[in-house]
C-alpha cells in the first residue's frame, strides 16, 4: 500500500522531467505534446544561435566567479568559527546563514536597488557578487561540518615532527579537508548556476544567464529551443546523480 503510493509519487516527480526529452526532438513551432514529428532542428538552432550560447557561457562564467567569491568568504570564516571560542559566535552564525533565511525575491529587490546605485546592474560583476553572497550559507554548512570532523591530532603530529604551521596546513590540513572543500565549492557553483530570481532582477541584457533566458523565452516568445536546453540540463543532473549514487554504494572508501 505504502509502496504503491510511493511509486505513484515518484512517477509524479519523474514524468515532468522526462517529458522535456521528446519535446527537444520535436518539429512543432510551439509547445505541443505529443510532438507532431521528430527532428534535430532545435538542437542545430541551440548550438548555432548567439541568443542561447551567450547565456550558457554567462552562466558558467558567473557560476565560476561566484564560487571563487563564496570560497574566499567562507573558508577563512569557517576556520575561525570552528576552531576558536569567542564572544558573538551566534551572531556570526546568523550573519553567515542570513542569505538562506531571507527569501530570494527580497534579496533580489534589495540587490536591484543596491547594485543599481553602484551602476552594477546588468554586469557580470554585479551578478557574481550577488550569487557569491547567496551561496555563502550552503558552503558554510558543508565546510564547517567537514572542519568539525577533522582530527586535530594529525596537525599536532606534523608539528611535533618539526613541520611549521604553513607546511602543516598545506601538507596535512588541506589534503585531508579537500573532499569537503570540493563539495562546498560544487554546491556554491550549482547554487549560482540554478539561481533564477536575483538574476531576473539584476541580470539585464549583458549578464543574462540560462535560467533568466529560459524565463524570458517562456514569457515572451515560447521558443521551443528551451526544450533542448532543458534536456541538456536534465542529462547533466541525471549523470551527476547516478555518479554520486554509484560512488556512495562503493564500500569502504574515505569520503
Amino acid at each position, binding site marked *: 500500500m*505504502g509502496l504503491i503510493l*510511493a511509486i505513484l*509519487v*515518484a512517477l*509524479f*516527480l519523474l514524468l*515532468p*522531467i522526462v*517529458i522535456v526529452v521528446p*519535446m527537444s526532438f520535436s518539429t512543432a513551432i510551439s*509547445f*505541443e*505534446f*505529443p510532438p507532431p514529428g521528430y527532428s534535430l532542428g532545435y538542437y542545430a538552432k541551440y548550438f548555432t544561435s548567439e541568443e542561447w550560447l551567450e547565456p550558457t557561457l554567462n552562466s558558467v562564467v558567473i557560476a565560476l566567479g561566484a564560487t571563487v567569491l563564496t570560497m574566499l*568568504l567562507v573558508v*577563512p*570564516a569557517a*576556520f*575561525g568559527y570552528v*576552531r*576558536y571560542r*569567542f564572544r558573538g559566535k551566534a551572531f*556570526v*552564525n546568523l*550573519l*553567515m*546563514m*542570513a*542569505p*538562506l*533565511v*531571507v*527569501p*530570494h*525575491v*527580497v*534579496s533580489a*529587490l*534589495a540587490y536591484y*536597488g*543596491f547594485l543599481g546605485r553602484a551602476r552594477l546592474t546588468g554586469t557580470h560583476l554585479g551578478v557574481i557578487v550577488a550569487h557569491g*553572497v547567496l551561496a*555563502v*550559507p550552503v558552503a558554510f554548512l558543508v565546510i564547517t561540518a567537514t572542519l568539525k570532523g577533522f582530527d586535530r591530532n594529525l596537525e599536532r603530529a606534523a608539528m611535533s615532527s618539526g613541520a611549521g604551521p604553513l607546511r602543516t596546513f598545506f601538507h596535512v590540513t588541506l589534503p585531508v579537508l579537500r573532499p569537503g572543500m570540493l563539495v562546498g565549492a560544487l554546491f556554491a557553483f550549482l547554487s549560482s548556476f*540554478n539561481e533564477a*530570481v536575483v538574476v*531576473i532582477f539584476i541580470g539585464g541584457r549583458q549578464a543574462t544567464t540560462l535560467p533568466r533566458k*529560459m*524565463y524570458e523565452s*517562456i*514569457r515572451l516568445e515560447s521558443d521551443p529551443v*528551451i526544450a533542448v536546453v*532543458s534536456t541538456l*540540463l*536534465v542529462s547533466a*543532473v*541525471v549523470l*551527476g546523480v*547516478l555518479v554520486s*549514487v554509484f560512488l556512495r554504494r562503493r564500500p569502504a572508501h574515505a569520503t
Partner: protein
Amino acid sequence: MARGLKREHAAAWLLLGPSSVALTLLFVLPIGLMLVTSLTDPRVSLAHYQRIFTVPLYTHVMLNTFVTSLIVTALCLVLGYPVAYVMARRSDWVSTALLTIVAMSFWTGFLVRTYAWLVILGSKGPVVATYQALGLGGPAPKLLFTSFASTLGMTHILLPYMILALFAVMKKIEPEHLKAAASLGARPLAAFGEVFLPLSLPGVVNGSLLVFVSCLGFFVTPILLGTPRDMMISQLINQQIEELLAWGFASAVAVVLLVATGLILAVYNRFAGLDRLWG
C-alpha cells in the same frame, strides 16, 4: 591565561573579520537600504505599509499567499510522507531508486520543471488531448494560467525538499522500536500510529516549515503558471517594479514578506533551534 585568550580572540577575528565585514556590506546593507526606501520613497511616511494592510486588493494578495502556501505544504506532506517512509524502512534497490529519483528532481532547476508543466497543462498538451479523446464534451477546461497550475507546479518543485527533510529524521528511527511494538502484540497499523508516526514528527515539522517558508516568497512558478488575478506576494513585488517602478511600495511589500518569514523562523528557533533545520 588571559593573554592566551586574547590572542585566540585576535586570531578568530583575523579569520572572521573580513568575511563578516563583506557580508555586512554586500548583504545586510542592501536589505537595510530597501527598508529605508520603503519608508522614504517618494516621501517619508508609513503610507505604503498602511496600504498593504488596508486596501482589499493587497490584503487579498497576503491572504492568498498564506492560503496557497498552506495548501502546497499540506500536499507536499501527504505526497511526501509515503515516499520518505518507504525510503527509510527499506534498504534494497527500491530505496536507492526512490532516493535517486528524488535527488534528480531536487537538482533539476525550477525553470526546467516549470517549463515541463507549461507543456503538460498547455492547450496543446497531453491533458487537454486526453480530455478531447475521451469526448467528455464541451471545450477542455482551462488549466494553464490558473491558481491550480501554480499550486501544482510549486508542489512538484518543493516536494523533494519535504521528502528529504522527512527522510533525514525517519532513517534514524530504530527498526527495533517497531519490532518491539509488534512483539508486544501491536498490529502493524497500531505500531505505525503509536510508534513510528510520533517519532517522525520532527521531520514533519522541519519539512513543513521549509516548504511553507519557501512557498511564501516563491517567484518564478506563480508568475509563469499562475494568474495575475490571484497574485502571490512575489508577483505583486514583480508587478510593482516591472510595470510601475513603484520602488517604495515594492520595498514595503518585500519588508512585510521578510518580517513574516523572520517571525516564523524565530518561533521555530525558540522551540527547536534553527541549526536543526538545515542539519
